[in-house]
């Protein structure tokens, strides 16, 4: 006759610790932990982290240093892997190559509604074009919130991918950047913009340009503005001045309310 306590002892000995990595996978799939890798960005390599909801961080490697430093500064637990999952990798490559988000999912779930709105609006700015902070404030229906827009962009968790480098000061100066204004200039130059020329134009007091053939005014870097020939180009200090001259606002870059 087998004693019951021997049998129950054997049953108790069947308990096993969950294998390594189970908790990591649970936390990744619930969006509580991230994976990350190192990719080649438009101007140098960058750490990219993601959850199952999308990209959570994009950090120029030059700004942080080794992997351990990235893991330490990242808000959540991050596990290094060689590459993103295939679908994410495809959209990420395309976003880096084109300067547009396309269908790349971005996980902004840890941000406030206001920050999300600002960043979504920012992501609409096409590569090679810039908009002032005030433009975002007005477009999201909060024209007084220019400073808050600047703060929200400064905390952009995915710079470069969400192109906060394309947002500049209302006076036309390039303005500050989380990773230094020289990186902001480099990113704009990479997209074909001449940052020195932009600032020179701004110094002359020019904020908007118009075409005397169409009677439409734009931000100077709007794709429609770039087509205006010198002979037909009009320059304005403000939307009031442009409107007083009989011009209307471009429907693509929407330089006025």
């Amino acid at each position, binding site marked *: 006759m087998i004693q*019951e306590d021997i*049998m129950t002892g054997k*049953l108790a000995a069947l308990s096993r610790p969950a294998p390594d990595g189970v*908790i990591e996978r649970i936390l990744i*799939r619930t969006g*509580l932990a991230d994976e990350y890798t190192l990719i080649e960005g438009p101007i140098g390599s960058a750490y990219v982290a993601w959850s199952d909801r999308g990209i959570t961080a994009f950090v120029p490697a030059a700004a942080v240093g080794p992997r351990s430093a990235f893991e330490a500064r990242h808000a959540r637990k991050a596990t290094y892997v060689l590459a993103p999952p295939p679908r994410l990798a495809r959209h990420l490559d395309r976003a880096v190559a084109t300067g547009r988000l396309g269908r790349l999912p971005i996980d902004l779930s840890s941000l406030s509604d206001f920050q999300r709105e600002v960043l979504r609006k920012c992501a609409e700015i096409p590569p090679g074009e810039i908009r002032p902070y005030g433009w975002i404030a007005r477009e999201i229906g909060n024209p007084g919130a220019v400073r808050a827009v600047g703060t929200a962009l400064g905390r952009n968790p995915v710079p470069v991918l969400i192109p906060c480098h394309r947002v500049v000061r209302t006076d036309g100066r390039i303005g500050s950047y989380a990773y230094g204004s020289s990186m902001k200039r480099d990113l704009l130059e990479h997209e074909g913009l001449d940052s020195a020329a932009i600032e020179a134009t701004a110094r002359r007091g020019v904020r908007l340009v118009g075409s005397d053939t169409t009677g439409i005014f734009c931000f100077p870097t709007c794709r429609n503005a770039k087509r205006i020939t010198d002979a037909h180009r009009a320059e304005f200090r403000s939307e009031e001045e442009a409107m007083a001259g009989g011009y209307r606002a471009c429907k693509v870059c929407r330089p006025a309310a």
Partner: protein
Amino acid sequence: MIATLNSLPSRLAADRDRAFPDLVHALQDGVYSGALQFTRNGHDAQDVTQETFIRAYRALGSYDPERISDLNLRPWIWTIALNLCRNRARSASRRPEAALAEDRAEAGPGPEAQAIADAEVNEWRVRLSTLSGPQRTAVVLHHVVGLPYSEIAASTGRTESTTRSDVRRGLARLRTLIEEENR
């Protein structure tokens, strides 16, 4: 661990994302150990463990804080886990070859000792599979995982006294089985 479990419902209610990793830490070994007996192999048990906590996390997102504070976490987790084990057993019975292939492919995390230990797990899995469903569930949850009768009853929806007799009858059956093996 008990202290962690006691404070967890209120911490989950206050900040789900911060407290959730502690829930996984506290209960993952128990869920995995039980799932090893309720599924075909370590691979399935690992899947069930992951899926259990992912579902739990999503469920917590749809509960209001009051409901979370009142949760009896271990039985709640086991209700989810048992359901997943049952679903898996159902679909496994439809494709038995795949199960065998997975068994062979299953990479033991290292030394020979682990392989012997897993042989033990496999041996008992075969014995336990001859029990009725409720008896097997009750025996594994009580004696392998270490759940009290009240929590098993809460997980399975049976009464505590039924659970007690499930365990008693299950053990009696196992004893007969082992005596037959030794004859």
